[in-house]
């Protein structure tokens, strides 16, 4: 379930997925992260602060298991397109 958080004077903290055991953080590993995801493969899970229904909530992709999800990225709020 998404948990509500109260607005503070700091940016809401970014929750990073725990690195898997044995994963190194050298340059080559970071380069791998830039690869495009693949169709037919699992969508990477994430948790992020969100604005929804007038509240600030921490939201995870995994909460939507069992539903179809349309995940849309865009360059920025108040942009025109």
């Amino acid at each position, binding site marked *: 379930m998404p948990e509500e958080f109260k607005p503070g004077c700091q940016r809401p903290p970014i929750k*990073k997925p725990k690195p898997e055991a044995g994963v190194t953080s050298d340059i080559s590993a970071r380069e791998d992260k830039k690869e495009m995801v693949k169709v037919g493969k699992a969508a990477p899970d994430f948790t992020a602060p969100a604005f929804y229904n007038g509240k600030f909530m921490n939201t995870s992709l995994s909460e939507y298991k069992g539903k179809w999800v349309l995940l849309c990225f865009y360059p920025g709020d108040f942009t025109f397109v």
Partner: protein
Amino acid sequence: MLSVSVDSVYVHKMWNEHELSKMINKDIPFAMLSDQDGGIGKLYGIYDDDAGVETRGRFIIDPDGNIQGFEVLTPPVGRNVNESIRQIKAFQLVRDSKGTEATPAGWKPGKQTLKPSPDLVGNIWKVWKVEQAFDD
């Protein structure tokens, strides 16, 4: 539906309040996610390091959490919402049929599907016409 940008949740709130809610006469009916370090965009391969923003990436994720399709555009060109809906309906049909049906080019709800089988190999021209790939 989930939307993601590098803006803070506070900016999302302002955008909803001052602009988006005025376009649709209600609040945005889905969660607007904040990805301030671009981490989610990097996971999905659509973060633009140079500009420091997400490009216009759109992913269809099925109920098992698998990616069925995606589209990525540079910022100045908007998406075709009807096309996203058409694709989701096509993936839902295929899933409901447990893979016994497939949707040929130009399929939309109500149009003919194909039932892949050994007999169909080399015989699609008998059951499906090129005109069906285009809108009526």
